[in-house]
């Protein structure tokens, strides 16, 4: 992976390549049942609000192999932007170099932004921005370990919404998000990277279970219309369960 010599970092050789391994024997064949999880199961969520001391609000979320830390700074004066009657929500995502199977250059790349845009879409309508003219809420998300883009978007949205609540920013409702992919005839919830690669299509739904409103749908791949709508319902139902996990975590952190 050739990269420009960045004098602000310790640089390694000009270009280096990930090790290529001999063939992996265990291949999952279509039609087999899902490994170590039933289709409608999602991975257990560990959610810890308030782990970053200097942030206004923060949250750390871990679902098996996806580990994401999120911090909220603001609302604070938005610099060098024109007057805006509504507050601005600024979401920035950064992958750590060791977060994926193939090392990621520390430089910003397209994928960071596509996840940031997906999370921004999930959250923007849940925050009461009209109360914060001329100010900006910064949400910084660092993905420590990633197990598929869908998982990052879903868990990232949940972590960001928890961090906003932890920061005491006025929200219309907590946002929770869940992913689903269509594998053969079945719908598998909360797919890992490998499962998502096998799937024909994946859907990531973000919603506010308290108001039964959907704030974002992010569908990729080829699915029949009926399948996509079935995924949407399954995800929305699971989001209600995740919602109780988030509420519980916030209450506990408020007690300490």
């Amino acid at each position, binding site marked *: 992976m050739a990269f420009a010599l960045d004098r602000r970092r310790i640089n*390694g050789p000009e270009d280096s390549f990930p*090790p290529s391994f001999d063939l992996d024997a265990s291949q999952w064949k279509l039609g087999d049942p899902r490994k170590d999880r039933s289709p409608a199961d999602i991975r257990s969520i560990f959610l810890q609000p308030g782990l970053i001391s200097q*942030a206004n609000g923060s949250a750390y979320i871990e679902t098996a*192999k996806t580990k994401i830390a999120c*911090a909220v700074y603001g609302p604070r004066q938005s610099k060098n932007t024109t007057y805006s009657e509504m507050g601005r929500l600024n979401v920035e995502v950064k992958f750590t170099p060791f977060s994926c*199977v193939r090392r990621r250059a520390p430089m910003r790349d397209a994928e960071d932004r596509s996840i940031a845009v997906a999370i921004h879409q999930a959250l923007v309508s849940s925050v009461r921005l009209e109360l914060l003219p001329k100010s900006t809420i910064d949400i910084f998300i660092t993905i420590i370990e990633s197990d598929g883009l869908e998982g990052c978007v879903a868990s990232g949205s949940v972590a960001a919404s928890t961090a906003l609540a932890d920061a005491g920013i006025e929200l219309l409702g907590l946002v929770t998000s869940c992913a689903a992919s269509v594998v053969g005839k079945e719908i598998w919830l909360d797919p890992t990277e490998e499962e998502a690669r096998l799937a024909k299509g994946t859907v990531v739904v973000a919603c506010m279970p308290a108001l039964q409103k959907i704030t974002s749908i992010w569908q990729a791949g080829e699915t029949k219309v009926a399948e996509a709508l079935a995924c949407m319902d399954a995800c929305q139902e699971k989001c209600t369960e995740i919602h109780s996990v988030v509420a519980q975590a916030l209450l506990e952190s408020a007690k300490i």
Partner: protein
Amino acid sequence: MGDSAKIFQRLHPRAYLERFVAEDVRPDGRPFDAWRDVSVNVGSISTANGSALVRLGETTIVCGVKIEIAEPELDAPEEGFLVPNIDLPALCSPKFKPGPPSDEAQVLSDRLNEVLASTISLSSLVIHPSKAVWVLYVDATCINYDGNVFDAALIAMMAALRNTTLPKATYNVETGLTTCSRTAASPLQILKTPISFSFGVFDATLLADPTAFEEPLLDTTVSVVVDENNNLVSVVQSGPGVDSGAEDTLSTCISAAKSRRVLLGGQIP
């Protein structure tokens, strides 16, 4: 802490700290020479070849090692690469902005690079002389910035390197490609495990392991790096020492560091 105390801390940090130091105690309740407790757990990140999560009090650092293969430099055909970097993202503290590494991150990376250079023999990273060598990317990311990041980062990097395994790689002369075996792997040969102990001098008092609140108020910072045989690896002092007459600041720091190193030795897996 009551609201008024917090406001006082924000408005007059120096006076606030002076009040505490006068009572021989620090804002977080520690005596001057006390260290925040350290917790290290390794191997938690599956996508990295070696990883470590270190908490030094509130300061939290995650470090991951990724190995790649590259052609060695022409003038060093028998040497691999060790590339340590630390990233202080905007997430860990309000004083950092998103974008390229800040000055503090660059300084820390350089200091870490100097210390780590002596910990691994680069010749042990050769797969095939002048054709293919291992490149160890040691990337540390600070999750929560509460002062003394250099100590925490060094512990994290050493723990991650000790946790790293290199798969057995064979270089195919015709195709020029290296294939690694999925099963056979061997740990890295670590020559030594240095640990750093940082101190700060504030109004002629020596504070061990300064927090993010104390750091900007320090007149002098001292960092002593000691390895497992209690030999000094590096000593850095920036700013004037305390002429309290009895013993020079630097030597007090060194002896404190050595005694602390003995206690801490077992904690790094």
